[in-house]
């Protein structure tokens, strides 16, 4: 009887060691993190100005911000427009990356339609 008890206890101890030696899967970890993005109110989404139906006889503005060789590109655009639309008048403008209020007002007064490129 005593021997049986000893064997039972020894068996339980052995099983315990066995259980401890088996790798167990840890509990899942959940992390909640705050969002780093800045929120903003979206701007009003405006529609485009009505197009001109034909460039013939129109005043076409070309705006370039002065980066190297943009003038070469726009000179070619002007030549092509004048060839295709001999009655059109092409006006070139140069200014900052953003044209700004003052020059924008001048362009609006002087042209019917425009091409805007920054030269990048």
């Amino acid at each position, binding site marked *: 009887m005593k021997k049986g008890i000893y064997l039972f206890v020894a068996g339980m101890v052995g099983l315990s060691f066995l259980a401890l030696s088996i790798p167990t899967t840890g509990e899942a970890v959940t992390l909640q*993190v*705050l969002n780093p993005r*800045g929120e*903003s109110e979206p701007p009003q989404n405006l*529609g485009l100005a009505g197009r001109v139906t034909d*460039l013939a006889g129109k005043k076409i503005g070309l705006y370039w911000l002065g980066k190297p060789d943009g003038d070469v590109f726009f000179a070619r655009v002007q030549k092509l*427009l004048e060839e295709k639309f001999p009655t059109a008048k092409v006006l070139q403008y140069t200014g900052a990356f953003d044209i700004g209020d003052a020059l924008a007002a001048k362009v609006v007064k002087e042209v019917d339609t425009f*091409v805007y490129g920054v030269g990048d």
Partner: protein
Amino acid sequence: MSGTIRIEKLGKPGVFLAAEGFDHDAKRATVDNGMTPLRIVVIPGYVWGQPTNQKPPLADASINKIIDALTRPLKAEEAKPEPIAKEKFKPVEITAESYEAAVEKINQLFLDNHWGDGLSLVPPTKKAVDWMLTGTSLPPDKVIGKVDPKGGSATVEKIAINAVMAGAKPEYLPVIIAAMEGFTDPNFDLRHPVLSMGSFTFAIIVSGPIVEGLNINSGAGFFGHGWRANATIGRALRLCLINLGHTFPQVNDMARLGRQSAYTFYVMGENKKSPWPPYQPNFRDLLMNFSGDLGFCAEKAFNFKEGSLG
């Protein structure tokens, strides 16, 4: 782009020309500037710095598209586009088999969303952010400014979240907030140095007793590594610009060579042994100046020695 929209708003129809590679940037700018139908003609092969004689053929290849954009009648959705939806940024919950795996998942998610800088981020848990906020007496919802180009609201809490991610300490927070106040000042042109092709960088000069208090390096190697304040104040500011202004390389930050302040700005303390007078009173009228912080757009670093550069 903003100039094109400015003229369209005044009633004149036009077209924006974008060099190849800048088309995503241009499209995104139509959202930020509130005119999503804007007509954009992409000029394939247009590269700044290529031989001059390669430019005219690019105009030849694009002229018909330009004419079409100027004359094609508007569709209904171009004349009256759908409103732009407000983006909501909610807290994120991540579950993984271990803490380390959860941190890794958060890092990957943040980078995938363009919310990180590529280095490992400290997870901005509520507890960590509350700890960061102990560095200021300002209320978390106080708006310090709107960050270009998106105009994201720089609340004290959002700045603190980014400061946690950068590995900063709460005592650095007032310096970070002061610099953000400077960057969002309407007189400071933030848009250009965070978006332009030019590889602008930023420098922050901190003066006063806070330099020693925070152990900001003002001696040899002050632009270098090895000081937590210099490193993490700058990194927190870069993360604030990424996340509050919504910028990211190849998306709308078009710096060709990247920015030297990619991971941290040049942050330095004024050196008491400097032979020059303190910056703060001298630059007060010249540059932006808040709470002893002075921030400006900078060029690359040089060593000065006996009148020469090295």
